């Protein structure tokens, strides 16, 4: 019973992934730099920022920067946990 459920779930996810893979755009399209041109043309008007890279990092892709900050936070917490003072019963 459990194996059958797993098989059904596996087939469902596989079919979904295959459907998603076949319904994407053909390779290389859109091949022109539509997104780059949009950023370059609108960064100064929309974000009021001269540095287009900063406009992308902190405005258009702010969520991505949140992930980067989370990576740094995880690194700091990991190092602090590694070098913490051990209790007597942990030695």
């Amino acid at each position, binding site marked *: 019973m459990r194996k059958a459920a797993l098989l059904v779930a596996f087939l469902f996810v596989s079919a979904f992934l295959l459907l998603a893979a076949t319904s994407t755009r053909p390779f290389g399209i859109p091949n022109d730099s539509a997104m780059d041109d949009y950023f370059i043309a609108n960064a100064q008007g929309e974000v009021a920022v001269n540095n287009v890279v900063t406009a992308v990092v902190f405005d258009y892709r702010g969520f991505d920067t949140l992930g980067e900050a989370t990576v740094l936070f995880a690194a700091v917490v990991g*190092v602090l946990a590694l070098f913490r003072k051990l209790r007597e019963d942990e030695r």
Partner: protein
Amino acid sequence: MNHDGMSVIVRTVTRFVYGLILVFGFYVIMHGHLTPGGGFQGGAVVASAFALLLVAFGAAGVKGRLNKHLLQSLEEIGALAFLGLGFAGIGTAFFYNLLANSGTAFFGIGVPAGPNAGILNAGGVVPLMNWAVGLKVMTGIASIVIVMLIGARKEETE
């Protein structure tokens, strides 16, 4: 003077260069929306100044000056400020820049299209996010360096 750090030459040069590195790092953070750089890069520069101080004077030499708990608290404040600025525009979208081009005197001035000299008081939440991320990066890396240096010293003495 303690013998924890490096030679007199290194310590003297550090005294000269330390302030300059700090000023350059804060400049990179402050002008993140105008020139190459930003919060991450400027924060790393400032943290390198802290690291230089630690290497030159040793852990005992800076013990009273760099407070580990203060640094860690400031890192959390930077992270929460960044997240709060992201949530500030939640009325439109997550990380929506609600201050840009709003006309207010607080980072709300518009920028003319094309090449210009650069307006510092523009960009909406982008400069504020630069400061938040810069604070987070500089204190985070500084606390990593402090903790690792103190841990290494302990290993040596044991």
